[in-house]
């Protein structure tokens, strides 16, 4: 009996949250009231299942060991018992009602987004996230960090060295702590799903519709998540990184972003040199286009055509701008990029890879919109 107690307490210790988290065995508790509620619900249902499993499997394995012919067991012939049937129908119903009540409470709470202090609009694109702060006038795209893309086919040591392999982006979403935030989630092409486990927020991004979710984050820190709905080739490569900062730091960040946005708007109005366009274009290309059309422009024909010798990249600039702005077939639209970036990347596509197309200025893109 003593040994049994020792064994049981060791088991309980093993199942305590810390060990679970360390080995990645269990759900994490997260940093919002919703994620805590979900975690509690998860653990409750889990333990109910464990108890039922112990009883049911206990009976089954006892029977397997005790009631075997080789031990001389003689089969009883009993069968049919309305009492037993009623018992094992009614008891589960009662247990289920016991689970349904707290589950309903949590569900109603997490679906109520009416008390939010601020809103963030999240748009899924193949294969990146766009974040808009409607009131603050901030908008940016968040891609898997280039350093991570580079080591996907690299060595284990390289993947180790980049840190948080595949869970790093070129621009983090920044949110204030202790603020009730409403997420408005939509998509520009296929269905995506915005999931940050620590927030207990996971919501489909449907093209043409807006879903919402909310979170009030209790702790400053960096939180990571991923797209959770198959959205095509690079579904596994569109992570989410959120920096949760103090309210003061958040205000500072907002004013920096607004200044940057103003500078970017100004740059779209000037005329760029070809060299400037090419430099800027290469980095935009590698972030947005190389996933399908490849860094060297070879593409993956026939689904993703090659840039090299492409009739579009070597043809009329207007057609080229049109395709990049509006997409075509499997090619998504890139109209969410700024005019300067679009002009740069189109110029790059028309002049790199041995192509001989014309130079495109931001003003060309502006007028084509």
């Amino acid at each position, binding site marked *: 009996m003593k040994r049994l107690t020792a064994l049981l307490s060791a088991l309980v210790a093993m199942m305590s949250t810390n060990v679970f988290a360390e080995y*990645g*065995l*269990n*759900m*994490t508790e997260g940093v919002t009231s*919703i994620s805590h*509620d979900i975690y509690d*619900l*998860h653990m409750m249902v889990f333990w109910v*299942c464990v108890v*039922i499993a112990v009883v*049911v499997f206990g*009976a*089954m394995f006892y*029977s397997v060991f005790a*009631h075997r*012919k*080789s031990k001389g*067991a003689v*089969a009883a*012939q*009993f*069968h*049919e018992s309305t009492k*037993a049937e009623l018992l*094992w129908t009614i008891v*589960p*119903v009662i247990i*289920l009602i016991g*689970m349904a009540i707290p*589950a309903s409470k*949590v*569900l*109603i709470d997490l679906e109520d987004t009416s008390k939010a202090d601020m809103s963030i609009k999240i748009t899924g694109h193949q294969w990146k996230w766009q974040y808009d702060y409607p009131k603050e006038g901030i908008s940016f795209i968040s891609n898997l960090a280039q350093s991570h893309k580079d*080591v*996907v086919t*690299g060595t284990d040591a390289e993947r180790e060295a980049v840190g*948080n392999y*595949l*869970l790093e982006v070129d621009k983090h979403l920044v949110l204030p702590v202790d603020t009730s935030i409403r997420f408005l989630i939509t998509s520009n*092409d296929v*269905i995506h799903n915005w999931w940050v486990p620590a927030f*207990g*927020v*996971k*919501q*489909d991004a*449907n093209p*043409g*519709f807006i*879903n*919402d979710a909310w979170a009030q984050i209790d702790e400053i820190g960096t939180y990571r*998540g*991923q797209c959770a709905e*198959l959205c*095509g*080739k690079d*579904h*596994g490569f569109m992570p989410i990184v959120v920096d949760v900062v103090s309210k003061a730091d958040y205000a500072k960040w907002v004013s920096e972003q607004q200044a940057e946005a103003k500078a970017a708007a100004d740059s779209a109005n000037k005329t760029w040199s070809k060299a400037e366009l090419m430099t800027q274009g290469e980095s935009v290309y590698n972030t947005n286009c190389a996933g399908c059309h490849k860094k060297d422009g070879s593409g993956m024909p026939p689904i993703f055509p090659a840039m090299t010798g492409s009739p579009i990249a070597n043809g009329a600039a207007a057609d080229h701008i049109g395709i990049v702005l509006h997409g075509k*077939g499997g090619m998504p639209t890139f109209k969410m990029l700024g005019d300067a970036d679009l002009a740069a990347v189109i110029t790059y596509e028309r002049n790199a890879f041995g192509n001989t197309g014309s130079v495109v200025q931001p003003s060309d893109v502006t007028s084509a919109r």
Partner: protein
Amino acid sequence: MTTATASHDDHHHGPEKGLMRWVKTTNHKDIGSLYMWFAFTMLLVGGAFAMGIRAELLAPGMQLMDPHFFNQLTTMHGLIMVFGAIMPAFVGLGNWLIPMMVGAPDMALPRMNNWSFWILPFAGGILLSTFFMDGGAPAFGWTFYAPLSTTFAPDSTDFFIFAVHLLGFSSIMGAINIIATVLNMRAPEMKLMDMPLFVWTWLITSFLLIGAMPVLAGAVTMMLTDRNFGTAFFDATGGGDPVMFQHIFWFFGHPEVYIMILPAFGVVSHIIPTFARKPLFGYSSMVYATASIAFLSYIVWAHHMFLTGMPVAGELYFMYATMLIAVPTGVKVFNWISTMWRGSMTFETPMLWAISFVFLFTIGGFSGLMLGIAPADIQYHDTYFVVAHFHYVLVTGALWSIIAATFYWLPKWTGKMYNEGLAKVHFWWAMISVNVLFFPQHFLGLAGMPRRIPDYSLQFADFNLISSLGGFAFGASFILLTYIVIDCVRNGKPTTARPWASAKGLEWTLEPKAQYHSFNTPPSRALIEQESQNS
């Protein structure tokens, strides 16, 4: 495959000789064998895709394929296993067993039976040929959510749609045939409540098929017109709704999962009483539980869609309805255990598979209950927790029962006994490796690994490695299974008419290898009562 069985054949003609026997056959036993061999071939093909998936996921980084090909593999693995392996295997079992179990000479519609089988190799061939087309095979998951499967899909999607239509025809014809056989060809002296549970579960499954498959046909037809004829059912820019696709798909898809598990419940309800030497505890409650599950399966579909932005009232309803399924499923598990209780058990191979089914399917049931809790599903949805769940119910549920049934009735099909020692080795090999393969996936999912990703962050590396190694071992176990079955057919020792002493059922009253034409005269009331599970 063995050919003539002239000595057992007192009817005016036996099977034709040569290849044309299989092409032209209208015999339920031949067609049953064709279905089983086709399903087994597809199981190996789908298994090969799974090996590819697990090989890529063995370690972080992309080593073997590009992400687009990875998505093709996961998509085709799911489609081939569901439509090519599990469903045809159950139709094969139904073909072989139902006429013998209800004392009928053959299926009610034998020519249609031939047709519904011979559609399958063509449908499967069309589906597999998409790998060689420009743009590759479908890469949008076996659930093919629009608009990824419409606007953004490769050209081969139209071939996929055609293949799904063909598979649907085949399934509907198979279901009609089984309903007609059970209701019209049943021995005149056999009442419905005399029928063996495998017949009951298949009868109910047939109604699920007839209800669900046309809905799938509707979904793929809408996809077809969206892709080619300018409609916008699932395209918001034309006034459609991509979420509507999911409602239609899962209105098919949820009954579909019970199509794949109800006949399994039937199989296990035969095997456990036989080897416990004790009558099935609650025959009628098993029948009612099956019917309840079938009914519930039609009204819970949106529990696959808790994150699509449903109104909270919808989520509450679908959560409650889903939780209710635990009740009749629990009744089944309790019945099996009560049947074992105070029995006199022996553990021949079919019994090992059946007990393993009860154990592992119930684990899949527990994770299913957890997934049904809508708020918790927020964290589980589209993670490896879901992958673990549905592999526990489909591999260690549906597939387990098919293997159990194969060992249980193989003596009746071949007149020969398989190698019991090797079969037990195979059982333990598969039993251990399947858990090494799928159990760690629960942890991966809870720790936050999404499903359908070709590469993952480093904290998921250890469990993926374990899972992959388990996967390779599990895959290899099917080489042994193939050997055991072929060895039985070729070299098995002749067996008796009733190799399992306590087995009940009209099929065991036939010759050791069931004659090519059985029950030309219907069995008597006395025989039916003597062989009934409901005694």
